[in-house]
């Protein structure tokens, strides 16, 4: 049991962007969502977090359907958006408090976890700052802290490496590894393919709203008849095929 996306059709207006998208994320695995710009990665994620309503198909997490049982579904996910989304009126400390209230976390334990994360990302002395005072990278770190201080079943991470310094990227990868060990499922969309190749257990390749491939790197190499191909090579060959001549 984990996240099961079945025949998802969806998009922003009447016209579907996603066509019959089906994939799953199992506990303890990191799944990479890969695709060109406009392939439908962010649209998929917006459906998974409940920002968009599916036209057809279902999204189920541990038996809770997002449409029929949204609160129980949302209680199990944590989200790191592509561009940092913060409340302008709240300080860093209050962002952590809002997260605690929203997920009904045990305040003391959650703060302990948060303190550890804040230290890792060198934010522990900035608790009373407003978002306006943070740089882009710091804001992204706040998003990571707020997501990873929870104890969720599924983490949805959208393009997390933009604007992070190499140290923070490494810290984030360690965090993901930790959560995996604890049995959480992680879905991560990214363009940073060499990192994805090293860390992801499986990949979901999206192309024009269709899932074109699902599986491990080995399986992908086999499908491309090239045992030594890197994820980058496979991605580029796919991109060439999609180029409008």
């Amino acid at each position, binding site marked *: 049991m984990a996240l099961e996306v079945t025949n998802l059709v969806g998009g922003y207006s009447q016209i579907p962007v996603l066509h019959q998208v089906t994939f799953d994320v199992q506990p303890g695995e990191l799944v990479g969502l890969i695709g060109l710009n406009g392939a439908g990665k962010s649209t998929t994620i917006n459906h998974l977090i409940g920002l968009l309503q599916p036209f057809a198909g279902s999204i189920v997490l541990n038996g809770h359907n997002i449409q029929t049982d949204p609160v129980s579904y949302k209680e199990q996910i944590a989200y790191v958006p592509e561009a940092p989304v913060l409340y302008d*009126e709240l300080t860093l400390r209050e962002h952590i408090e*809002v997260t605690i209230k929203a997920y009904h976390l045990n305040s003391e334990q959650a703060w302990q976890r948060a303190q550890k994360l804040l230290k890792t990302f060198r934010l522990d002395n900035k608790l009373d700052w407003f978002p306006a005072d943070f740089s882009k990278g710091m804001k992204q770190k706040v998003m990571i802290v707020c997501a990873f201080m929870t104890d969720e079943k599924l983490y949805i991470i959208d393009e997390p490496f933009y604007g992070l310094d190499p140290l923070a990227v490494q810290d984030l990868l360690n965090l993901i590894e930790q959560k995996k060990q604890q049995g959480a499922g992680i879905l991560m969309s990214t363009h940073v393919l060499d990192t994805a190749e090293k860390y992801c257990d499986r990949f979901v390749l999206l192309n024009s709203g269709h899932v074109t491939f699902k599986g491990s790197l080995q399986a992908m190499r086999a499908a491309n008849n090239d045992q030594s191909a890197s994820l980058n090579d496979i991605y580029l060959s796919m991109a060439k095929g999609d180029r409008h001549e």
Partner: protein
Amino acid sequence: MNSLFKERRQKHFLMLLKYWRLVFNDHFVIALFFLFGALAYGYAQWLPSIPAHNVWIELLLVIFMTVIAQLGRLATLVKTADPIFLLPETSRMKTYFRQSYGYSLFLGAIISLVGLVVALPLASVTSRTSSWTIALLVIVTLFVKSGWLNLSYLQLSMSQSQNPYWRWLKWIGPVLVWGITWLLSPVAGLCLSLLWLIITSWLVRSNSAINWRVAVTAERNRMSTVYRFFNLFTDVPNLQGRVKRRSYLNFIVNWLGQQSVWRFLYGRGLIRNTEISDLVFRLTLVMAAILIFIPITWLNSIIMALALYLIAAQLIPLYDQFANNAFSYVYPTTKDEQYYDFQIVFRKVMVIVAIWLAICSIGIHLRIVQVLINVIIAVIEVPLLTTNYLKYRIAKIEK
């Protein structure tokens, strides 16, 4: 380059037209008409009681006309991308800015003349005003505004934009001109205003190179004021207020909400974002002042009822303040919880506003009966506003 300003002015007009149509569509504007009617009535009642040649009234006229001169800013219609795309054209931008000056003067003159029309009855009570004097006053008004806009232009120039002196002169100039006009004689005022116009025009002529960075910021600030005005009546997209810490108000933040996510957010969103709290605060102060000074019982009570409605109407957009934050959807909460929490915060603020207005309606003559009537109005109206009216407005927002 000659047609650029015309094109932009046309687009700007269309945008304004679109918003004005919404303004006159709203029932909020009916309430405002009532309010202006009440104020005009109060003004008319007050006039006969003023003695002739009263220095205080003349000083009031000076202050009023000086403040009026500050309204109607220089509208350059400059856009953020201009410094990049129009950089090669900088030397040819003179025509553009001359046209923008003409446009701003036209609008500014209308505002100033309306102000003068409001002030004239008062002026004619304190001193004799012939049609000859009125003609002089009109010319003084135009000269003052024209010179004021010259200084606005100077504040955008390369050489003078760092000079804080001009900001003060924009107040000192009108104060001097109107001081001479009302306290001494309109003819002397006219001479001074002509001098003011000539000097400021000469200053502009000798400092015409534009500081793009300052011009863009100034125009952006002006547009945000325009949008804020329209936001009183309708929802203007992407209008963001500024955030202030206001730690001295933390006790209110804590009182408004600590327990649940939405009360936590709404309490902080209201107090720290200047957008809605400033508006509600100012409206409450203005309404309280009106209630203090209007002695006619039925009129006072009508204004009390209107004030509660107007303030409630301006407070409700707070509900939607976090709508474009994705986490409002990610957090495991329901719409019902959000509505319920907003209602609590909304009710708390409305009760405080109602108590404050009821206290103020005791007025300068200590009318206990008026307070009692206004308390009864509040006891009936506030529950209606926080249930039925709130439900109606939220349904409109959610649609």
